[in-house]
């Protein structure tokens, strides 16, 4: 009897374990398959692929520097815009707002994450880009002399991409930051208030206490921004150039894959695009891994474990 149960348990462990293993296998397979397919490009260009900036499929010259530049620029711009807002929301919901408002606000901010990327892109083309164009043409001439605001006022370009990315990243950062703030012990705030701190001072102390986790939350948003494809592709202008200007149309790594993958006729071209995907895969793995490490480090003994929502909107479900 005892043996039968034990062998039954082993079967159960094996049965579910196979599927769990499949999950691990998929991640490994992605890395393997992308490396395999980008082999031609890696062998041909080596490190020069990432140092040169000529992207000429016809001549067979591939330099990915403009895409890296565009991806980093747009993502960092998005972070600069979204971080204060996202932290403000997290603090407002977790510390300031009355109880009855909490759930509706959580629901609404996380609805931002639920709206499909393509809908943001469509809205971006027809609403945001004209608004940005208006903003650009009404920029005072003195500012237009500086490199950050030079160039034609097309509307499509880095500024539009940064704005739309910021909107898309806010719910991710704010929902994790909220979870992190939840893990700050209540006694910490009570102590601050007992010493006569104002609301701002008490919250500042709590935020300082949770700083590791909050940096993690911002990094998680960064990871999302790096890989965001459709909305950015539709508003950034898709022009492989390295420019400091917010007005200039530029290009990102996901955007070039989305635009050119089906057109890549020869093996080298395809391989170059896959290599961009491979690097995107590795970079997002590292950024996400680091951010989760930071968030988890908030969960040392004695503190509640911080949950990283798989999908922001899911938090209300689980």
């Amino acid at each position, binding site marked *: 009897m005892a043996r039968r149960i034990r062998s039954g348990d082993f079967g*159960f*462990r094996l049965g579910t374990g196979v599927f769990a293993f499949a999950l691990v296998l998929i991640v490994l397979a992605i890395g393997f398959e992308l490396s395999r397919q980008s082999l031609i490009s890696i062998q041909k260009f080596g490190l020069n692929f990432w140092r040169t900036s000529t992207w000429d499929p016809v001549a067979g010259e591939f330099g990915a520097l403009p895409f890296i530049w565009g991806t980093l620029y747009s993502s960092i711009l998005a972070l600069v815009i979204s971080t204060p807002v996202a932290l403000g929301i997290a603090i407002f919901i977790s510390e300031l707002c009355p109880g009855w408002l909490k759930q509706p606000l959580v629901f609404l901010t996380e*609805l*931002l994450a639920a709206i499909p*990327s393509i*809908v943001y892109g469509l809205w971006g083309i*027809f609403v945001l880009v004209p608004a940005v164009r208006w903003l650009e043409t009404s920029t005072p001439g003195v500012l237009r002399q500086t490199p950050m605001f030079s160039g034609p006022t097309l509307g499509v370009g880095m500024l539009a991409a940064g704005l739309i990315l910021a909107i898309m990243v806010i719910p991710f950062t704010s929902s994790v930051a909220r979870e992190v703030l939840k893990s700050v012990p209540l006694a910490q705030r009570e102590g601050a208030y007992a010493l006569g701190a104002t609301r701002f001072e008490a919250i500042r102390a709590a935020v300082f206490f949770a700083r590791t986790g909050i940096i993690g939350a911002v990094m998680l948003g960064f990871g999302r921004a790096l890989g965001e494809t*459709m909305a950015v592709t539709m508003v950034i202008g898709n022009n492989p150039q390295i420019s400091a200007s917010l007005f200039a149309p530029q290009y990102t790594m996901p955007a070039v894959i*989305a635009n050119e993958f089906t057109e890549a006729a020869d093996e080298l071209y395809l391989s170059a695009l896959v290599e961009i995907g491979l690097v995107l*895969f590795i970079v997002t793995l590292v950024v996400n891994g680091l951010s989760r490490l930071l968030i988890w480090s908030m969960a040392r003994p004695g503190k509640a474990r911080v949950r990283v929502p798989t999908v922001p909107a899911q938090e209300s479900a689980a």
Partner: protein
Amino acid sequence: MTNAFGFSRTSRRKLMSSLFVGFCALSVLLALMPLAFVLFFVVSQGIRALNFDFFTQMPKPVGEAGGGMANAIVGTLLVTSLGSLMAIPIGILSGVYMSEYAGTRFSSAVRFAADALNGVPSIVIGVFAYGIAVLPFKQFSALAGGVALGIMMIPIIARTTEELLLLVPSTMREGALALGSTRAGAVFRVVLPAALPGIITGIVLALARIAGETAPLLFTSFNNRFFTTSLRQPIATLTVQVYTYAISPYEDWHRQAWAGALVLVTIVLCCSLLARVAARRIEGLRGH
């Protein structure tokens, strides 16, 4: 104590505090504004183009007014169903493994892999699915699109299942084991059914997210101007169709794109609301 500005230190601190509270409230408004704008434009632009034909007609060539996205709607349904067919068993069973053998090293590895996979950009998943499901057959297909979407769903379902199983009171499992049930019996007959409403909610949310994906479908299921239900043929989907129409120069196609966006947003909103209602019920379970 007054300083050069004539403020006492206390009132300066109070002012600072009020300004901060004001900033936090303002940032909520700042985030909700784009949400309101997006919803407003999608609804107002979409409703004008949305009619019965949109759901029943095929796309018309440029210049001909009217037409719809019947083929793309069927395509989205087909591709997301294929994705769920692949993701639900893998997701639920690996979630069961993670919660049942929570302490083991392998389950940590699985959890790590699930989180990693969840963070992989959807376009990269598309490139991968192209490599394993398009290249070998030299053909874009609905099946390849399903593979790409399935891979994106797996980690969401796995993590939801794990978390919800851990919420089920351990007394229920112990009761089943005490009555002589095997571990598998306890899980499949007692623990899993108790967590099922929540898991289904998670699946609905995952579906909503996956149905709105475009990037992984661009070069897996590709696009198709014709009606097809064949799994081996390229197939149109709502999202890819909206993309194609949005970047086209034609006024008429733009209208269709807005209508498509309205349908997508409606799906997402309904799923989110549904999940929220369900979540309220599950809160009861959590209270124990």
